[in-house]
Structure formats: structure tokens, C-alpha cells
């Protein structure tokens, strides 16, 4: 590993391929860095709330260091390319929303078409490669305000991720985090076991 990998390369390495969605996430992460004057997360200093679970989120994780595992990546399943990035240290948050139709290029539609195919001929593989090249340049060189609308937002910074006790499930014997366990007549149960007994799945 070589240190000082630029954001774009970090994101591509993390995500595994280059696609328009990832690049939009790279632009969003870089915009957040510039707007909030931040770099990468250390010790849950940054929090990201993402409203999509598609490719772009990987750029947020790789570049800003807000990850699912650390608990400073919050996913709201709204199906929107919207990223809210908050900094505890700066006491500020910015909400970045992709503008509707901003990346509706002629090449995007054909790219999606080829992307849906299970296998590509050599010609199609070349075509897809050339399309991603064109889209790459368009997305990465677009003025930020054509790609996004952003604003400072009020943001109540949640407490840092808590470490909860682990209890043992009476049925399967596996460990389950206390706040996700179900206290039933049959004893402490994990959610899958509780569901098997026809209990409510409330999480």
C-alpha cells in the first residue's frame, strides 16, 4: 500500500469498479470535505446520513471514513441521492442533494443498458469501456453546482456508537446484542428465533 492515495483512487479501490454512481459519490464526498473543511474521519468525528444504498455510498465510506462498521454511517432507505455529512468538531452539517437530471447524459442510458447484460461481446465490452471514459470526464469535471444543490442544515449529532452487552439466545445459543434481544416467556431470544416461534419481530 502506498500512502496518500487520492480520494478518487481510494473510492475505486474500495468499490472495485468505476461506475457513474461511484463518481457522483466521489464528487459529493469531495464537496463535503471542501465545504466543511474536513479530511477523513478519525474516531467517529464525522457522521454521514445517506438516503441511498447504491454505489455512491462506497465513495462516502472510502473517502470520508464514515462506515457501516464504525456506526457513523446512517442509512435512510429513501432511494434518493442525498448525503448529509456532519462534523462534531466543526459543529456543522451539510446536506448535499444530486440535482434531478444532472447526469442524464445520452451515454448514461446506453451504459445502463450494457450494465444490465449478463455477458458482453468484445465489441460491447469496448463500447462500455468507452462510455465509462466519457461519463467519467463529464461527471468529474462538471461544476459542483450543476451536479448538486447543498445547504447547511441543523443537525443533532448522535452520541457515539455504544457498545452493548451480549446476551445468549435461549433457542440457538448464539450471542445477541442486548438492545436487539426479545424477552419472552421462553427466555431471551434473538430475532430469528423469536420469529420462528411466531413472535413479533419488533426490532
Amino acid at each position: 500500500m502506498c500512502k496518500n492515495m487520492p480520494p478518487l483512487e481510494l473510492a475505486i479501490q474500495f468499490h472495485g469498479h468505476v461506475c457513474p454512481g461511484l463518481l457522483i459519490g466521489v464528487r459529493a464526498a469531495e464537496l463535503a470535505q471542501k465545504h466543511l473543511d474536513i479530511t477523513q474521519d478519525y474516531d467517529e468525528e464525522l457522521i454521514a446520513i445517506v438516503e441511498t444504498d447504491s454505489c455512491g455510498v462506497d465513495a462516502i465510506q472510502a473517502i470520508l471514513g464514515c462506515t457501516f462498521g464504525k456506526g457513523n454511517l446512517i442509512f435512510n432507505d429513501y432511494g434518493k441521492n442525498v448525503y448529509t455529512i456532519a462534523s462534531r468538531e466543526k459543529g456543522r452539517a451539510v446536506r448535499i442533494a444530486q440535482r434531478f437530471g444532472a447526469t442524464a447524459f445520452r451515454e448514461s442510458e446506453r451504459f445502463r443498458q450494457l450494465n444490465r447484460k449478463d455477458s458482453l461481446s468484445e465489441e460491447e465490452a469496448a463500447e462500455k469501456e468507452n462510455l465509462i471514459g466519457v461519463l467519467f470526464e463529464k461527471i468529474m469535471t462538471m461544476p459542483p453546482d450543476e451536479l448538486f444543490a447543498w445547504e447547511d442544515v441543523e443537525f443533532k449529532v448522535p452520541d457515539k456508537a455504544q457498545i452493548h452487552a451480549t446476551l445468549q439466545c435461549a433457542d440457538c445459543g448464539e450471542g445477541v446484542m442486548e438492545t436487539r434481544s426479545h424477552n419472552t416467556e421462553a427466555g431471551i431470544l434473538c430475532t430469528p428465533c423469536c420469529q420462528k416461534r411466531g413472535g413479533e419481530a419488533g426490532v
Partner: protein
Amino acid sequence: MCEANIYIDRGSGEELLMEMVDRVIPGEENNIFMESIFGERRVVKARIREMELVHHRIILEEIKEAAEVQTMEIWLEPDTDHGHFHEGEEVSLKLLKGYNMKAEPAAGFKNTKAFVTNGGEKTELHFHEHDGDKNLIMGQETEGLIQVYAVDEERLYAKLIVEIGHHHHHGLQPLGLPLEIVPSSYSHARMGDNYEIQVLKEGKPMAGVEVRATYAGTHNRDYPHHLTTDSEGKARLYLTARGNYLFTVSDEGIISTFTLMKSF
């Protein structure tokens, strides 16, 4: 059953192009349109060589357009999957011959020589031949910015710049090849950079000449990028692919390449 499988000969034997074809229509400009019973449609530039109707085989022979006639060129590649060399690491390069960064082992080298220049001094390098590969090994003492070039058939040139260790800001001198591609500023090239090169013919900027560019592992059969130099002999390319890039220029039988090493 009246469908046929279509095979195409692209110069290296027959290969299956399309299965279960039920329509074949020869069109303008050597185009042959075909459609399969599955609705797949394709157009190729070819002529029909043979129709073996009993065996449901149609054999096409590809017609290479004038622009697609592939002339062989040589280029240098770093012999590392790491993309760059660190101080103390053995610097090892490969010389390849082929087209569009796809090596053609059958092409064969003729009167091949290689040289290294490090701060003005030029030294001839000797090839280590191994399984038909031509390798240049420069040892571990090398550091700074070094330029390596090779010449084959007295008209094919390949150049590569190796930066060992980081942040070397030496001025980069042209090597004085009859036809040469020189990067405008040698910094670490990255994806998303607008990379500028200059073409020199006998040391003078060459305006209005075509520079082709490609990158390692492209699926394109021909060069994906075609640039034209401006009045200062310069051209720019926005780098969007991973891995190394190759820039190529040709003039009066001379073909000169420049390999741009990228770490990623």
C-alpha cells in the same frame, strides 16, 4: 433446420461469430448484416468466403478497413504489478512489440538496442532474453528520474520515464530521438488528470500531427483515443482508465511511443 452458425476469420483462423442465424443481408461498404432466431443483430465488415449449407455453416472473412491495418510498434512497460518503483527496489522493464498495448509475440525484434539516461549521461543497456521476452534490468542503485528508450528496426522507438522515490523535480530533457513524445511536466499522473504531451520531430515541436493513446487492458481493438497536436505540438488527454497509458505518434515510417506509468 435452416439456421446457420456464422464463423469469421479475422486473420487467425475461424471463430464463431453468431449462432442460429436465419437472415444474412450483404449491404453497402462491405457490411454484412445478420440476425439470429433469438433476435440478436450484428453488422460486420466482411466478405462471404463459403456457405456450407449442409453443415449449417457460413464462413466470413473480415475486411480490415484501411485505418485498421495494424502496423507493429514497440513500447516499454514496467515489470511490476505495483505500477511504480521504490528506492532500493530493482528496476525492471519489458520491451514489447505489437499494437495498441497488445503484444504480438510473433512480431519479432530486429537490431534492437536500449539506452538509459540519468541526468544527461547515456548508457547502453543489455537485454535479458527469457522465453522470447526482452527484459531490461537496471539494478537497485538507480534513483531519481531516469529515461529509458529502445529502438528496433532502426525506425521504431519506445520511451519510458521511471521516477524512483517521490517528489523529484528535475527538469526533463528530450532525448533527441528523430520523433519523440515528451510529457509537458513530469509529475505523478493520476486518473482524472488532464495529461499533456508534446511531439518533437528532430527536436522541434510538430503541429497538427495525430497522437493515438491507449491504456493497458483495453477491450478496444484499435486505439481508443485520437488526439491532434496544437501549434506548439502539444496535445492533452483526460485520464480515465486505471493502469499505464501509451501515447503513439508516427511520421514517415517512424513510430515513436511513450509509456506513461501510473501507480493506479
